[in-house]
């Protein structure tokens, strides 16, 4: 048996060579995607220079935090295919952990990062451990319940969480006596979101773990047959999603300096899920677009109509009817480019022959 001595694996007789990469061009779909990315990053960093008004910066920071939150949920829903309706629970855990440690114990904001990560990992295991044995709809219902439990605990555990009035006076980020003001905090959020969300998540998705997530999403049994432990794979997705949400929660706490239970209602979970779904599940640029829509949408509609959430809802309905896979589906490079699935497979179909030998079919 040709077992490779070094890897101790059964390897194919000939190793396949990767195809020569097509020459990169700025006018191809991938080139345009790159241009859009660069324009986006430049815009994010130039925004305070264009308009440093309080409203613009507030909205910008909020949008960035939601992008991080939606990218985290994208790991759970888009890659691993686990419908989570209580995602905002981890956002709350992150916000409360950093809020409590900074106001009650006087820790600087940066020092609470390990605590936030730890608490989110614990919360992820506590919530995910028993529920991830369930499939699809059941999982959605249970996560919905857990999301509400976290909010109700925050509301009623007065000595620690401050009850319905929450925790206030949460300090901004400070590094050795230098405290970030609003605009600096905006830049800080932008860097964090860019590193953790925009570059980190797609990289994770490209490796072994990302492939395992997608395999579990597409067919759990087949994934198990490929040697993928579906349970640990799912819980890893859940924990990574939880930590991302927790860090977003920490940014949120330092940004608005108040944490109250009313900011973690089911509507928040639904909004973030909506960002993922209308953007395009599993598509990073799509999810970013979705997060921008859910933060800016209601704001832009503010002057249009009093019942702006109703208008927003109708708009979303239209989007889902027109583009059921999302505005920027993961199966196409650009929103308007051809679906990768329509690409013709260059496979020679073996000639169909129906000349069965009847004697072959029956045991004689």
């Amino acid at each position, binding site marked *: *048996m040709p077992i490779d001595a070094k890897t101790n694996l*059964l390897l194919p007789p000939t190793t396949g060579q990767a195809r020569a990469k097509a020459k990169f061009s700025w006018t191809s779909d991938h080139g345009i995607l790159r241009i859009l990315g660069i324009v986006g990053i430049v815009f994010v960093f130039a925004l305070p220079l264009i308009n440093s008004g309080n409203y613009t910066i507030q909205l910008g920071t909020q949008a960035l935090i939601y992008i991080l939150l939606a990218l985290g949920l994208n790991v759970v829903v888009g890659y691993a295919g686990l419908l989570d309706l209580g995602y905002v629970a981890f956002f709350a855990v992150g916000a409360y952990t950093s809020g409590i440690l900074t106001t009650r114990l006087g820790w600087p904001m940066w020092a609470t990062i390990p605590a936030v990560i730890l608490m989110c990992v614990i919360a992820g295991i506590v919530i995910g451990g028993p529920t991830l044995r369930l499939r699809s709809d059941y999982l959605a219902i249970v996560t919905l319940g857990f999301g509400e439990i976290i909010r109700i605990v925050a509301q009623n555990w007065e000595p620690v969480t401050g009850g319905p009035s929450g925790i206030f006076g949460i300090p901004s980020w400070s590094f050795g006596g230098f405290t970030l003001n609003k605009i600096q905090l905006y830049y800080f959020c932008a860097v964090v979101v860019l590193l953790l969300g925009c570059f980190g998540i797609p990289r994770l998705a490209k490796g072994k773990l990302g492939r395992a997530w997608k395999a579990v999403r597409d067919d759990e049994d087949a994934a198990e*047959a490929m040697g993928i432990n579906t349970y640990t794979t799912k819980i890893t997705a859940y924990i990574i999603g939880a930590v991302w949400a927790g860090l977003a929660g920490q940014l949120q706490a330092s940004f608005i300096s108040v944490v109250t239970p009313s900011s973690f209602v089911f509507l928040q979970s639904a909004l973030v899920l909506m960002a993922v779904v209308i953007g395009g599940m599993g598509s990073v640029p799509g999810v970013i677009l979705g997060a921008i829509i859910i933060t800016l949408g209601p704001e832009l509609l503010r002057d249009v109509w009093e019942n702006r959430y109703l208008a927003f809802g109708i708009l979303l309905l239209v989007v889902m009817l027109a583009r059921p896979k999302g505005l920027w589906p993961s199966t196409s490079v650009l929103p308007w480019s051809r679906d990768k699935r329509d690409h013709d497979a260059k496979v*020679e179909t073996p000639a169909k022959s*129906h000349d069965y030998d009847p004697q072959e079919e029956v045991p004689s």
Partner: protein
Amino acid sequence: MTHIAHGTTTAQVLDGVDRNILLSVENLVMRFGGVTAVDGMNMTVERGEILSVIGPNGAGKTSVFNCISGFYRPTSGSIKFLAEEITKTRPSEITKMGMARTFQNLRLFKDMSILDNVKTGLHSRIKQHWYHAFLHTPSFKKTEHFIDETARGWLEFVGFSGDERVYVTQLPYGEQRRVEIARALCTSPQLLLLDEPAAGLNHAEKRALIELIRKIQALGVSIVLIEHDMGLVMDISERIIVLNYGKEIAVGTPEEIRSNPLVIEAYLGAEEGQAADATGADVELLADEAEIDEALEEIEAEPEKRGH
């Protein structure tokens, strides 16, 4: 004509365990509620052989496969793979031990490219932590390069010649079958279970499949296949096990199976003239009637007990 491979020249017996036996199933029983799908089945698979499991529809073939690969937990009985008991082992662990399988109805990952589908097979064989991917470390690039080469190599091996970047749903059925086999080979198996690999294939594709199975055997991998296509089974099997009502009714070479009266009966049904079997069946029926009477009496007695 058992092939001896994996470096063994003769049947090595160490610690009282026959090293030449890859898989042994003893007294396997699988019940679903009142239905007994597998009823005390026995089989062994030797290193390097091609073994076929055949039988009429509903004979319990796929249930046996699901028990062996860990998807069902058998009601009773023992399954030993590489001399280790695996009846309570997770399917992913069994794959890690060196057993791979394909499914009766193609189960490829529909929203992944062909290459990514095949790459998933290497999951348990590669060490790569998530932070390696996150930081794009040199070790990440090295492992990804290895995964890429190996996956492409197996695609080449199974004779896939198209564009491996497209999604699997874009491929014709026969090609999808090949991709599924490449994916299973990627897990580095010693034993490969193929569940109806020829289903839905045309004549030319079946010929290619036979060639491919022989090529896999030449690598030293043992193959167990469930198949309905008798031409294919008789052509490539070294041994055949015939299942009926969850029990093996015959084991032997294709020639022996071809002429076995029990097998012919299982497939074509007993003829009127075969008196001995016919009366046997009647006796069984009578026994059943007696049981039914007993059960009815019990039911009649029940309400009195429940009355209080």
